[in-house]
């Protein structure tokens, strides 16, 4: 099976913050892009590919051109990647594919968002707005609550099984001073005691929205050899997009990540149980539960027992979201998905500091957008 063969050679990350005041998204994109390109040891002029998110703050159209102009870049490949929380992972293999296709040689992938107090409501006129919102279902919380309830009904999973996921994320965040919940651990009991938002979903099972930014630089494996940081190789990737609204989901207890991960494992010749790091998209606890099952780490419905059997810390047998995940780090909008890529690169470089995992050869990174709708999976390997 053919596969894109790129390497991640630079990463940048902004410390998340609850609110910004008078800061534009473009300014944050510039700050985090500079960090990633400096980390790669490249001159800005060497960046000839640009992948960005949709609707950057005040810029609803011509987003790549606006960002290129702002950064002083003149890319030979520029595109928007619009896959919600899967955008970050989705950018990585698009970058690698563009390089292989001869479109460009070094791609900057960047996502960032400000968070001002006066954000307007979404102007959506899509089918969700017409057919879900009038019945009282606005926002992602209710959609994920429906997925969680379906899992409980089908498999008998219980509230505590899910709470353990949030507690583990908080525990890991205690080793990441940049995490929004650094210094604020929460055990499973605290998660279960937090307010019910939309049953069966508790407040602490939901990511905290924050401002922030993430960026990475992708180049060819050949070019990566001459750069200053150990390259992290893209070994396999997969993607699947099945629906947008939860009512139209083909399944409620399994998602498109299943086939995306199967493809990423097949391309890389690896298995889920060989991964040294699980960097799994975690907007809600149910997302991690379903991903563990869809990856084949346990049988469908078995995530609760699997969690009980494993240590998810950096010292454990199954390190999971060592940066705290988005549940512990905070969710800087679309950039939240890219935190899972950036942490995997840190770990596979052996540069994760006091939260460095022992053996760091292979990492699974997942991205998820909308309501288990847009899915991208990456298998990354150390140099």
């Amino acid at each position, binding site marked *: 099976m053919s596969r894109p063969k790129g390497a991640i050679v630079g990463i940048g990350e902004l410390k998340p913050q609850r609110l910004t005041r008078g800061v534009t998204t473009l300014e944050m994109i510039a700050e985090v892009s500079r960090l990633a390109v400096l980390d790669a040891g490249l001159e800005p002029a060497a960046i000839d590919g640009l992948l960005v998110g949709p609707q950057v703050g005040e810029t609803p159209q011509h987003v790549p051109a606006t960002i290129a102009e702002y950064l002083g870049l003149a890319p030979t490949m520029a595109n928007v990647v619009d896959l919600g929380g899967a955008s970050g992972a989705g950018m990585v293999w698009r970058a690698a594919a563009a390089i292989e296709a001869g479109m460009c040689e070094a791609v900057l992938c960047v996502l960032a968002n400000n968070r001002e107090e006066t954000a307007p409501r979404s102007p959506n*006129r899509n*089918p969700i*707005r*017409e*057919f*879900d*919102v*009038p*019945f*009282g*279902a*606005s*926002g992602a*919380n*209710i959609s994920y*609550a*429906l*997925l969680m*309830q*379906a899992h409980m*009904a*089908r498999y008998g999973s219980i509230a505590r099984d899910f709470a353990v996921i949030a507690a583990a994320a908080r525990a890991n965040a205690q080793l990441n001073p940049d995490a929004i919940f650094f210094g604020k651990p929460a055990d499973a009991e605290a998660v279960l005691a937090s*307010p*019910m*938002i*939309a*049953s*069966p*979903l508790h407040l602490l099972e939901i990511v905290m929205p924050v401002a922030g930014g993430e960026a990475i630089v992708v180049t060819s494996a050949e070019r990566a050899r001459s750069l200053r940081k150990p390259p992290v190789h893209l070994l396999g990737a997969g993607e699947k997009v099945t629906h947008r*609204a*939860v*009512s*139209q989901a083909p399944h*409620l207890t399994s998602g498109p990540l299943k086939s995306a991960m199967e493809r990423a494992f097949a391309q890389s010749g690896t298995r889920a149980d060989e991964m040294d790091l699980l960097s799994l998209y975690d907007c809600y606890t149910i997302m991690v539960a379903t991903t563990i099952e869809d990856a084949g780490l346990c049988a469908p419905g078995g995530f609760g027992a699997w969690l009980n059997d494993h240590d998810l810390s950096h010292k454990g047998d199954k390190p999971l979201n060592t940066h705290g995940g988005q549940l512990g780090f905070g969710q800087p909008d679309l950039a939240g998905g890219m935190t899972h890529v950036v942490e995997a690169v840190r770990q596979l470089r052996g540069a994760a500091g006091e939260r460095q995992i022992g053996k760091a050869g292979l990492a699974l990174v997942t991205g998820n957008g909308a309501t288990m709708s847009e899915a991208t999976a990456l298998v990354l390997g150390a140099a």
Partner: protein
Amino acid sequence: MAIDLNALKTPGPTITALTKPFWDAAAEGRLKIQCCEDCGKAVFYPRPICPHCWSKRLVWQNASGKGRLKSFSEVHKPGHPGWLPAAPYVVGLVELAEGPTMLSFILAGTRPLHVGDMLRLAPTAIGGRVLPAFRPVEVEPGTEEKPK
């Protein structure tokens, strides 16, 4: 429910020429969905082409109003402020007998809700318009349909 759902200031549907037959029927207390004359499948929500076979031969038909609860949530913190006076309220995924699934407002029955419960169309005035809501089918003890 003690509150008057019809008095809520909730966002209504964003109706287009294509979707108008659905909402016109809803206002009359009926549930109308599209059916494809080529592949025979029912379609929800309304579209100009069949999402199963891309045929344009879609016709409107009255749905049976029977459904099964695929999942539900009791909403304590609504995503839209217009729903705050109604909280907590229940929304659910309703698998229509004709095949497609729609999200709807679920009225309280006499017993706690369970995934798999059989539902029946229960047109309800919410926010100044009649919407195709659902409520659990009340059954005689001992004659319950077993959920699939």
